[in-house]
Every structure is written in structure tokens, then in C-alpha cells.
């Protein structure tokens, strides 16, 4: 029996026909082809009805008016995290707290500085003795050095979320790549990955950013909540050119989904999403098709489950998934046999 079309193929064809009908009346031979298509599979009429209904709904976009600026709508209203079940969240918090209580032992050594790290795929909460906490994402290393005047943490590599307890007399300093991030009370994420510039994202409070080797007043940038700043290496002297960008609260939540062991995507390309997964496990997702690699991905996925993610992707984009040792290989086409017998 011939390979059966996937529902995705049918949706695609239904969209194409809807767009063609939107362009203008069909020529006679087109009409014939259209009718032939419609009767070829019991799912097609239904798919066409849905495609037309959505095209009809999109007509109401006219009400958005000529001043409609899609950019203003780019961020979604709801955080994907809202749909995390309480049970999942609690389960995770429980294990983090357990890990944290073990770690607390190691943090109390001031002079040399305690180094705390995570393995690939691990997320760990490190409570500091002043009541602040650091949540370490996968493959992250920090050094903690508290003194009388300063609470000093160096981000050596990876990604960490700092929840800073208020202490006006003793600022909380995060040093990363020659930058000092200073906070009195704040919640913020700092990320230092190999190839990318350092990325600072402030969730709560305020963080002041300055280059280490410059007088504070010269180049301090203050970041408020829902702001993001990328820092080029201060070695090349361009750090002052970096400008903070406001970021929607939902985007912040998405960026921080890893705190719940999740990865959230909202239209990132499949390639970007696959790259993100490689930080969390030894499994590699390879996309063998440039078009497929560019497909936008949306959804919330378990960070430690690249297989589940790849299956979902394969299903959504009608791609073929093969596992080869630690490699997951996604290719387009060829697999239309969902219901084939």
C-alpha cells in the first residue's frame, strides 16, 4: 500500500488551496484538480474546513488597523510555566532543597573561596550564608568569597540565577569576564557560555554593571527588572557600547524556565532549540535538512529529555527521527507512514 499522507501534509495542502482560492477564482483545470484533491482522502475536507475557518478568522485582523505593529505583539501574554503542574514544581523543589542542604556544608569556607559546580544536565540550588541563593544551571561553576564588606561571587562558567537577600552595607557582587555586577537586592540571571557574550537578565530589583578596571562612575549601567544586557569582553574595550534592552516579563519567564528543569521555546528555530538541548545532555540532535532546521519551535519541554523533544518535533514537522548511539538524527520527508499497514 502507498505511504499514507500525514495529517500535517494534509494541513499543508489545505493551506495551499486556501491561499490559492484567496488569490482569485480557479481556472477550470484548477477547479478539477481541487475537487480531485478534496475527494482523495477522508481527512481532506475537514482539513480544508479548518484552514478556511482560520483564514476567515484572520480577516478580522483588518480591525487591527493600519498602525498595527506586529513587533509590539511578539511576546506572548502567558508564561509557558503557568502550565507546569504544581506537583512537578514541588517535586523539583524538593530535590533541589535536598541537594542544597548537602551543599550548604561546602559554602562556609570564606578565604579560599568555595567552588560550587554542576555536571551536565544538573540543576542545583546553593544557599549562601546571608540568605541569598544561587541556582546553578547545567555545567556551571561559581566561586563564592564572602568578606566583611562584600558578598563576592565569580561566575567561572555556565549559567546561574542569583536571588540576592537585602543587605545595604554589604553589596552582592558577581564578577564575570571582567565585569562587576552589583546588587543590593535583586533576582538576576548571568550566563557565560563558550562562544557567546555574557548575558545578564534582571528579573527583580536592580543590578549595576561596571567594568572591573574602570572607575565605577565611568561606565556603570543600571539594569532594572525585565532588562537584558549582553556584555562583550571588556578586553577589547567595547563594553560601554552594550546597551540594555527591555524584555517582556513572559520572555523573562521563558528564559528562566530551566529553573524548573524545562526549556521554553517561542518561535526559535529548530536548530537553536537543538543547540540548547546539547547543553543538558550528551545526546546530540542533528538536523539534516536546512529547511527543517529553520522551522520555528514553540513549547515547553523537559530539558533532560532530548529524545522526547525530537519525537515531538518529528511529529509536528513530519520529519523522520533516527537514533544512532548518542545522536538523534532528524531528516525531512520519507516518513508518511503513520497509519500505514
Amino acid at each position, binding site marked *: 500500500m502507498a505511504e499514507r499522507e500525514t495529517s500535517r501534509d494534509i494541513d499543508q495542502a489545505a493551506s495551499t488551496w486556501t491561499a490559492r482560492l484567496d488569490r482569485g477564482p480557479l481556472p477550470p483545470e484548477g477547479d478539477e484538480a481541487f475537487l480531485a484533491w478534496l475527494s482523495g482522502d477522508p481527512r481532506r475536507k475537514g482539513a480544508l474546513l479548518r*484552514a478556511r475557518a482560520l483564514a476567515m478568522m484572520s480577516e478580522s485582523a483588518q480591525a487591527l488597523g493600519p498602525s498595527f505593529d506586529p513587533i509590539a505583539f511578539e511576546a506572548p501574554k502567558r508564561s509557558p510555566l503557568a502550565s507546569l503542574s504544581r506537583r512537578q514544581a514541588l517535586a523539583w523543589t524538593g530535590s533541589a532543597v535536598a541537594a542544597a542542604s548537602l551543599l550548604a556544608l561546602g559554602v562556609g569556607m570564606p578565604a579560599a573561596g568555595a567552588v560550587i559546580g554542576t555536571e551536565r544536565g544538573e540543576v542545583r540550588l546553593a544557599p549562601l550564608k546571608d540568605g541569598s541563593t544561587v541556582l546553578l544551571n547545567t555545567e556551571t561553576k561559581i566561586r563564592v568569597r564572602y568578606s566583611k564588606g562584600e558578598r563576592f561571587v565569580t561566575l567561572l562558567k555556565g549559567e546561574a540565577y542569583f536571588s540576592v537577600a537585602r543587605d545595604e552595607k554589604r553589596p552582592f557582587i558577581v564578577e564575570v569576564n571582567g565585569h562587576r555586577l552589583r546588587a543590593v537586592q535583586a533576582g538576576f540571571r548571568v550566563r557565560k557560555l563558550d562562544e557567546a557574550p555574557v548575558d545578564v537578565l534582571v528579573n527583580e530589583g536592580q543590578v549595576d554593571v561596571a567594568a572591573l578596571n574602570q572607575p565605577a562612575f565611568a561606565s556603570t549601567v543600571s539594569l532594572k527588572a525585565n532588562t537584558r544586557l549582553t556584555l562583550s569582553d571588556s578586553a577589547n574595550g567595547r563594553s560601554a557600547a552594550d546597551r540594555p534592552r527591555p524584555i517582556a516579563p513572559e520572555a523573562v519567564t521563558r528564559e528562566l524556565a530551566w529553573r524548573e528543569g524545562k526549556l521554553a521555546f517561542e518561535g526559535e528555530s529548530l536548530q537553536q532549540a537543538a543547540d540548547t538541548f546539547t547543553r543538558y545532555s550528551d545526546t546530540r540532535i542533528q538536523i539534516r535538512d536546512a529547511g527543517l532546521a529553520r522551522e520555528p519551535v514553540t513549547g515547553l519541554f523537559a530539558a533532560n529529555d532530548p529524545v522526547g523533544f525530537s519525537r*515531538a518535533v518529528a511529529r509536528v514537522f513530519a520529519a523522520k527521527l533516527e537514533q544512532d548511539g548518542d545522536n538523534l538524527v532528524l531528516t525531512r520527508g520519507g516518513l508518511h*507512514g503513520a*497509519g500505514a499497514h
Partner: protein
Amino acid sequence: MSSADRQRTRWFLRNILPHEPALRGWLSRSALSGIDPDDVIQEAYTILAELEAVDTILYPRAYLFQVARSVITRHVRRARIVPIHAVDDFEQLDDAASPEQQVIDRDELRQLARAIAAMPLKTREAFVLRRVDGLPQREIAAQMRISENTVETHISRGILFLIDWFGRGGNKRSQTSRNMESEIAALDGRARNQSRH
């Protein structure tokens, strides 16, 4: 589209489409190997498209679920190996009204704006010119300096994007259905492997 077609489409848009995430969720939770929820949904819609009249349907949501169930029953009978619990599982129908049904009515415009905003750039540009500014495809082609066929492709992609957005992914309630995608896919993947080996 004829006016009868338009009427049916509008009825479908208002009364059926809002329940799609719920239906997909239910189908996925009770997933049977070899039966793809998306196939069932399309086939159920075909049945609705072919109905003589729809104005006698008082409870569209319940009706939709019933139609979907009939599609499954047909598939289960057709399938070579029927899991013993299959039909029983589907008798336990979750038919309670849920907040999902409001997805399209409420904040529809905002949802739509957001969906359009999330489209790939060129597609978005073409789609905005077509739907917001109301330009015909021919004029969009001239303005964007691309062929009419390319404009048609962008419009088609835009529609496909909305199908995914409202049925599966980007909107608020059905986010969970996309979240569950990996579980669904796991089942699905198993079914596929079995069918190929």
C-alpha cells in the same frame, strides 16, 4: 466561497474550532497505538463539513466529541489488532465544558495579533499586507517585489501557522497540548516503529 460555504465555515469557526485543543487533549490522553489524534480530528471535521445542516446541533462541543468517537470506533474496527481495552477507554468521555472553549471568542484579536507577530518575517509581511491592509495578492507581489506564486506560498504558510497556533501551540490554553507533545509523540513513535518492522 459560496455563501453557504461561508456560513458553514463561520459556524465551524465559532462553535467547533474553540474545542479543538480539548479534543486533541482527550484524544492524546486516551491515545491508542496507530491512531493519530490529528488524523481523527481532520476526519471528524470532514464529517461536519459534509453534514446537510448544522443549525440543529444544540451542543456543538458534545457533538464534536461524539463524531470523533465514531471516527475512532471505525478506525479501531479497521485496525488489524485491537487492544482489548481500546473501545472501553473511549467510552469514558470527558465531555465537561472547559475554559478552552473561550480561547477564540475572548481576546480573539489579541491572539491573532500575537499569532501574526510570531510568523516568520516574510510570511508575516505578506500576511499583514493581505489581512490587515487588505491588499490583493497581486499588489502584495508588486510591493514586496516577489512573484505572485511566492505571495501565495506566504499566505499559505500563514494559514498553516494559524492552524498550529490555534489548534496546537501558541495560544494560551492549548499550550499544554504542545507541552504534552513529547508524551504523545512517544506513543506515536512507538506505533510507527511497530508498523514499520
